[in-house]
């Protein structure tokens, strides 16, 4: 009996049924996708890291190395399962030439290596360790993806020809966020190249039990072994591998939560409208003795059917989209061994969506109990009692006119009803503004100052080469004479030991120089200006448990030197563990230098970058825009795309919900509309009243949404960005977009939807709605 009634009902209200189903489908689709991607991502990372036998502890080191001492240390440590020292031959980007061009402009440290002896394998696309033959070169996948090279191409490395034999997956350095990339060659070729680049060592350990990692790190530090370079541990490798796809999954989950929320609102609207429409029938059913539960069942079945169809559709569709979204994960990390679990997890997620929606419908239907049968049968419409409240007087002097005022009065009188629409508009404003703000923030040059780098036009890095000091001085001298350069600053990175409270020593990479020329943004306090001051990256401060104003002891030139902590800053460079100070210590070895410069005329930046790059082949020269483009380019681009998609989705939701809401209001108000018509109000008058309601709610929604986007949205984005190592975060807002374009677009969407939604007001016949 119910089946036919439900089908008839759905056919009668096609738009509403379709819209509701659309949202349920979208929610199920997204949840299912997030589950599938999540299972595959975590499984694929595990598989890759297991097959590659990724080191648990890796110390990069430039400079002389005492292999025997390291072996002895590894032997003494019970926690160590395997130990090896891998060589990484740094090569200038300009000397690696693909058929399509060289890596001269690359901000990555590109280097060559041979296959791992015992572990840390570079694997092929089937997940097997690669054995490179002489003349063969295996290229990091990233470059293949960027279209620079394809298998079979000739690649010239320092004039020597190689054949690109294939691509490699590198469980350590796959991610764009990782600043180095490894090329694999045969041992013979490696020996031939050895003299053409600068050598760096990867001192690698695998432990019996990862739980011992903390203790092992401390022991390595305490043993005073090779430490001239960053230290990276297994959890960090894992995080880097998971970060970009993990962020995508997080965004999908966030969006699906929003879509579920919108689906709820949609259902709430349509259900309340339906109850209003069927008020008399519900009364009659009650009057003839049907139980509330029986009546509820009729409605529940319809929505459960709708939710079931939507959920199944979403689940099915997720398998269509699955492969496209999994492509990246599969390519960079390979198949997941737990992949077979994905459909089950997806089904569980979709089931959850279905259950949550059904439970929600059941909750909304609870109001059947409150419908008084006699009143419903008699009036056929709910007789709400507004109660004793101050009602806004109709002030004829009101500059916007009677219709506008009537609209606003209705909103104020039924705040609860309009709160639902307000929520949608606030959400929409939020969804439009936050991603755009995020985009502007990340693409702004100032963002760099939140990431451990000052804002300059040109940046030159000198590292992994010999005679760093002389080479740096040479560049500085050239800049001194260069009229195009307004000012420059040299920062020299050196490694010092810190005495910890527990008596142990820890290494600290300190950038020495004048930090006032190209200042960072400090989370707390300020940069170092005096000899005895030091600023720490947030990660270091957290590890050393220090606050601004605290002091710490450095070992400088063999002496203990007490430093005051002047401030904290976020840093994403060098594993997030850096420090800044102004003192000098000529005796400590230089890890590297960084020269920043400001160029007088912005139009000269590209030319100057090219000139310095050509002149100082040993250095890595980058314009700041190029640096941002290469390092964060893909992230910025995907956030940009996501922000447009989010904006379009939010506007669509706004239109759909406003449309539904207006139709519901018209259904609810058909009696009041009929009364207005008998009093001589035209259809145009009535439309004006409804537009006033919508615009009033819209204004409130935009204002609240904008405020929330710039406060809560900033905090949320800050939390997301914090995963990239940035602790302090403030939005860079584009006033044109946030305060003009987005309200304008939302306004247009709402007006269009209101006009469409209130067309039915004209069809309301006085006689049918007023007749007793």
């Amino acid at each position, binding site marked *: 009996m119910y089946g036919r009634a439900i089908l008839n009902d759905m056919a009668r209200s096609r738009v509403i049924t379709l819209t509701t189903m659309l949202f349920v489908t979208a929610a199920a689709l997204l949840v299912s996708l997030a589950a599938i991607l999540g299972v595959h991502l975590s499984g694929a990372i595990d598989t890759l890291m297991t097959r590659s036998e990724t080191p648990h502890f890796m110390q990069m080191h430039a400079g002389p190395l005492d292999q025997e001492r390291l072996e002895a240390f590894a032997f003494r440590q019970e926690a160590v399962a395997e130990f090896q020292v891998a060589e990484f031959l740094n090569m200038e980007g300009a000397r690696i030439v693909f058929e399509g061009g060289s890596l001269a402009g690359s901000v990555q440290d590109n280097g060559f290596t041979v296959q791992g002896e015992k572990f840390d394998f570079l694997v092929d696309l089937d997940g097997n360790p690669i054995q490179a033959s002489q003349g063969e070169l295996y290229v990091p996948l990233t470059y293949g993806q960027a279209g620079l090279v394809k298998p079979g191409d000739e690649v010239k490395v320092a004039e020597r020809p190689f054949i690109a034999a294939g691509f490699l997956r590198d469980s350590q350095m796959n991610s764009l966020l990782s600043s180095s990339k490894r090329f694999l060659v045969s041992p013979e070729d490696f020996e031939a190249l050895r003299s053409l680049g600068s050598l760096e060592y990867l001192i690698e350990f695998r432990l019996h039990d990862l739980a011992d990692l903390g203790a092992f790190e401390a022991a390595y530090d305490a043993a005073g072994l090779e430490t001239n370079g960053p230290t990276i541990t297994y959890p960090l490798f894992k995080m880097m591998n998971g970060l970009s796809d993990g962020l995508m999954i997080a965004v999908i989950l966030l969006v699906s939560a929003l879509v579920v929320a919108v689906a709820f609102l949609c259902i709430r609207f349509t259900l309340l409208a339906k109850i209003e429409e069927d008020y008399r029938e519900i009364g009659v059913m009650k009057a003839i003795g049907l139980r509330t539960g029986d009546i509820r069942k009729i409605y529940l079945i319809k929505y459960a059917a709708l939710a079931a169809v939507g959920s199944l559709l979403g689940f099915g569709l997720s398998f269509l989209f699955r492969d496209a979204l999994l492509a990246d994960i599969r390519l960079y990390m390979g198949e997941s061994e737990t992949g077979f679990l994905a459909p089950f997890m997806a089904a569980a997620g979709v089931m959850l969506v279905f259950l949550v929606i059904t439970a929600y419908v059941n909750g909304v239907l609870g109001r059947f109990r409150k419908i008084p049968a006699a009143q419903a049968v008699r*009036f056929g419409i709910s007789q*709400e*009692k*507004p*109660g*004793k*409240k101050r*009602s806004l*007087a*109709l*002030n*004829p*002097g009101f500059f916007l*006119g*009677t219709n506008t005022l*009537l609209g606003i*009065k*209705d909103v104020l*009188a039924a705040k609860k009803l309009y709160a639902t629409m307000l929520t949608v508009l606030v959400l929409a404003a939020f969804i439009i503004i936050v991603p755009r703000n995020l985009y502007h923030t990340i693409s702004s040059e100032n963002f760099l100052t939140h990431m451990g780098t000052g804002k300059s036009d040109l940046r030159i890095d000198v590292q992994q080469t010999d005679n760093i000091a002389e080479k740096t001085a040479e560049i500085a001298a050239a800049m001194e004479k260069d009229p195009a350069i307004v000012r420059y600053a040299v920062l020299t990175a050196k490694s010092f030991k810190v005495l910890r409270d527990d008596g142990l020593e820890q290494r600290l990479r300190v950038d020495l120089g004048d930090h006032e020329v190209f200042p960072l943004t400090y989370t707390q306090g300020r940069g170092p200006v005096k000899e005895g001051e030091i600023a720490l990256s947030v990660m270091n401060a957290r590890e050393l448990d220090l606050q601004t104003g605290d002091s710490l002891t450095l070992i400088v030139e063999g002496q203990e030197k007490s430093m005051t902590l002047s401030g904290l800053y976020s840093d994403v460079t060098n594993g997030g563990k850096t420090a800044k100070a102004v003192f000098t210590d000529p005796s400590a070895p230089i890890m590297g230098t960084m020269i920043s410069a400001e160029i007088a005329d912005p139009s000269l930046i590209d030319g100057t970058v090219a000139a310095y790059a050509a002149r100082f082949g040993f250095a890595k020269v980058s314009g700041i825009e190029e640096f941002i483009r290469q390092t964060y380019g893909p992230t910025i681009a995907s956030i940009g795309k996501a922000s447009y998609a989010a904006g379009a989705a939010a506007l669509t939701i706004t239109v759909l919900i406003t449309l539904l809401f207006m139709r519901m209001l018209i259904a609810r108000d058909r*009696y*009041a509309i009929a*009364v*207005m*018509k*008998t*009093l*001589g*109000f*035209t*259809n*145009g*008058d009535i439309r004006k009243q409804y537009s006033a309601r919508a615009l009033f709610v819209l204004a409130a929604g935009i204002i609240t949404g904008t405020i929330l986007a710039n406060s809560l949205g900033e905090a949320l984005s800050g939390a997301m960005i914090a995963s990239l190592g940035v602790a302090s975060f403030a939005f860079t807002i584009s006033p044109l977009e946030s305060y003009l374009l987005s309200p304008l677009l939302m306004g247009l969407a709402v007006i269009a939807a209101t006009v469409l939604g209130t067309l039915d007001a*004209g069809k309301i*016949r*006085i*006689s049918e709605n*007023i*007749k*007793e």
Partner: protein
Amino acid sequence: MKTILSGENIRKSFGEGEEKNRVLDGVSVEIREGEFTAIMGPSGSGKSTLMYTLSGMDDIDEGKVVFDGRELSALKEKDLADIRRRDMGFVFQQPTLLKNLSIMDNIILPSLRDNRKKAPQLRDKAESLMTRTGIGGLEKRNITQASGGQLQRAGICRALMNDPKIIFGDEPTGALNSTSAREIMGLLGEIHRSGTTILLVTHDIKVAAQAERVLFLLDGKINGEYKLGLYDESREDLKAREEGLTAWLVERGF
């Protein structure tokens, strides 16, 4: 006396196909200026529909309705709304007041649309109408804070605000107790004596007996007309009119 409202051969059906139900089947009627007419008939005879078509609130399938020299079926929605607002007043069985407005605002609402700048005068006029109808002092009340009878009077005040040429009433005393009903009819009588045309739909003989003439509607057709003449407001007159009307109606099988 000049004819203010006329219907000529009005036909009106609801539904389609097999479910089509002809409610008005060639009704012709003439209402003269200043006249008080009641339409009676059994349930489903089409009396409310006749009133709605005559007031332009419902369209007709065939025929012609002319109000004050203008054919209503030829007018646009906007012009019909103007006529309803300026020249017609409506009183329904339930007080059709809007719940978000105070009683005063409900009364001035239709007049306000055209006379926003004359608001103080409108309020004065509304106040005097409220005093005249016995609800003075309720101006600022919410509609939930007034009785059914008081709301019906407010509805009458609203109908009178624009000095309409005609007042339509659809069972205006149907939802009231006998005291309130008597008072409302007294009020309508007074309005009629001041020169306003009144057309009422009712199935209450007591109400219809106060009209000058009664039209009897049966199965969508005018079945007969009973002339009562002017009511002198005495109990005796009312009794005599009721008896005469009852006898006439019984003859028609009512």
